[in-house]
């Protein structure tokens, strides 16, 4: 049994956990003071030795990403924290920022010091107003205490941090779209290369990291690379949030080492709903291929999940039991991608539209067998032909659900309707819903 490893969440249960006072009383900003006493190159080496990989979805090695920054030319370079958290199933950064905003700020100053940045931005989705309040206050507290601003802790480091509210657009979580949005344009992706590390915000070198990535830095610098690397698997080191939602008894945030399995996580979450069995799940949000009961013991690290044809992604694990209709689930996710497609390239804009049309008629019992081929063809024309990963993401649950649950699509077509009762899928009992048959 893999033990959970609450690190970032370890102090969330404390009263007023969000204040600087509480954060400092638990040893907050000590790692920063320590980091500022070593050279920036040494900080980068500790991050490299820790094996930290980005927590925003792609799992790119953090120190390697920083290493792509060109040598200092005297001009500005920027650090942008990606706090747009909008991938369906992903719900870790928002509770982190609500409970412990200083964890992010401490990590941010460490990252800025290591990379030579003097101006940072936090791009926070707009639809979470209380998180804005907590971060605004934390920024004020940190400035007043000299953790931000000029000559931080007497080290000579100057750093300004601007909190920037998004305004509702999933695509702005994609790093190049985020930069367009932050520059004041429509949030549409840009072709890479050039990568942001070379030419990002205002065409200057820019590092973009996820909230959880940055918030992991105080622990790594405070307790050391070896401590961090002692958790996890060979290629995926450390602790990470596994966000469990859906038909488990205790949905929530489970911080664990990479390599934990869904079986272990479901056990920690008190099992499935009484009398129900696991049917399908997303390992990494809705932009990852669906897995099934066959995959309960797959170690949850990037390589192992990749080996079974999916992606670890954001670790937004959405769990559905045998009352859930996979066609309904996939149709709804696809509608999300249609709604959020930025419209810049044709395969994604047109493709997601067609996919929703076809899925909608299958769900309503008006589809044909030929529609199943049509779905796959459309997915093929989107995958790899879109400008950004949103287009690819739209196809993941469609293709994988057709692989694992083709018979269920056929049942909708042949039976001219959905064989499931949505009242049984809901978490509250509605009048007329059948009792769960144990």
């Amino acid at each position: 049994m893999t033990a959970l490893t609450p690190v970032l969440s370890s102090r969330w249960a404390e009263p007023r956990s969000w204040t600087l006072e509480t954060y400092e009383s638990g040893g907050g900003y000590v790692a920063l003071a320590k980091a500022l006493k070593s050279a920036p190159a040494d900080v980068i080496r500790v991050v490299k030795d820790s094996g930290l990989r980005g927590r925003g979805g792609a799992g790119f090695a953090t120190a390697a990403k920083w290493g792509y920054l060109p040598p200092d030319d005297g001009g500005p370079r920027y650090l942008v924290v990606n706090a747009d958290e909008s991938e369906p199933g992903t719900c870790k950064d928002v509770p982190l920022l609500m409970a412990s905003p200083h964890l992010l700020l401490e990590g941010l100053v460490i990252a800025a010091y290591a990379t030579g940045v003097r101006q940072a931005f936090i791009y926070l989705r707009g639809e979470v107003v209380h998180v804005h309040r907590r971060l605004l206050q934390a920024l004020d507290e940190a400035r007043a205490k000299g953790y931000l601003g000029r000559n931080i802790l007497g080290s000579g480091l100057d750093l300004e941090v601007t909190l920037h509210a998004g305004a509702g657009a999933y695509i702005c979580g994609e790093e190049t779209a985020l930069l367009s949005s932050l520059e004041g344009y429509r949030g549409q992706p840009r072709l890479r290369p050039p990568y942001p590390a070379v030419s990002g915000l205002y065409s200057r070198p820019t590092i973009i990291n996820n909230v959880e990535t940055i918030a992991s830095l105080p622990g790594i610098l405070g307790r050391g690379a070896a401590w961090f690397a002692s958790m996890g698997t060979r290629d995926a080191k450390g602790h990470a949030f596994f966000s469990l939602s859906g038909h488990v008894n205790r949905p929530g945030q489970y911080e664990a080492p990479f390599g934990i399995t869904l079986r272990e996580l479901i056990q920690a979450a008190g099992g499935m709903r009484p009398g129900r069995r696991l049917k399908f799940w997303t390992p990494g949000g809705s932009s990852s291929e669906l897995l099934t009961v066959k995959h309960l013991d797959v170690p949850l690290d990037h390589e192992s999940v990749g080996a079974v044809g999916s992606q670890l992604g954001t670790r937004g694990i959405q769990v559905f039991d045998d009352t859930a209709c996979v066609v309904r689930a996939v149709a709804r996710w696809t509608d999300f991608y249609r709604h959020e497609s930025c419209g810049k390239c044709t395969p994604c804009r047109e493709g997601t539209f067609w996919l929703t049309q076809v899925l909608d008629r299958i769900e309503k019992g008006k589809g044909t067998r030929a529609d199943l081929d049509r779905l796959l063809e459309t997915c093929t024309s989107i995958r790899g032909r879109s400008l950004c990963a949103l287009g690819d993401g739209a196809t993941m649950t469609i293709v994988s659900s057709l692989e694992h649950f083709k018979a269920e699509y056929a049942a909708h077509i042949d039976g001219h309707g959905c064989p499931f009762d949505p009242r049984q899928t809901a978490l509250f009992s509605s009048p007329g819903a059948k009792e769960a048959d144990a």
Partner: protein
Amino acid sequence: MTYSDEARARLDKDAQRILARYPMKRSAILPLLHLVQSEEGFVSPDGIAFCAETLDVGTAEVSAVATFYTQLRRRPAGEYHVGVCTNTLCALMGGDAIWEALRDHVGVDHHGTTRDGKITLERLECNAACDYAPVVMVNWEYFDNQTPESVKELVDDLRAGKDVTPTRGADKVCTFKEVSRILAGFGDGRANEGPSAGPASLAGLETDGGRKGAAS
């Protein structure tokens, strides 16, 4: 522009504080759009003109940006924005049933506003709270683990002018205009209200494994 002199002076002052946060002026466009929403409750033609003037860009450019983002409203809407998450996870956990019950109860559809100007309904995409499904947002504050009954009561209270308290948020839900001002980057002194975390956020801490494995 039809802003009163007083309003215009206030907006100008706030706009200068917003501009000071950015190395390049144009980056201030989203906070400025949130700011004009805090004045009128939506992005009006006056609001667009104000942003354009402040940033030295054309009004068409500001409109092109404003129409890209779903939180920016193009026409007057309710004092309380009530959003029901109907992305897959919430939808299947009961969000669809909540949406239907609410729509029938209030009598307006997606993006509709009640005649008393109190409530605007919207179906939302995932709001980063799937572990609290089904989720409802009122003026972007969390109402976790909802049911059709709880949500009907919630809108009845809002329409009756009663204060309502989010699950994880301030002590009471503020108006849409007040909330827009926070998104423009101006705190309202309510950061210390509400809990650190809800029960689902703490779930991993409260298992045996979590206590035993606590790496601190």
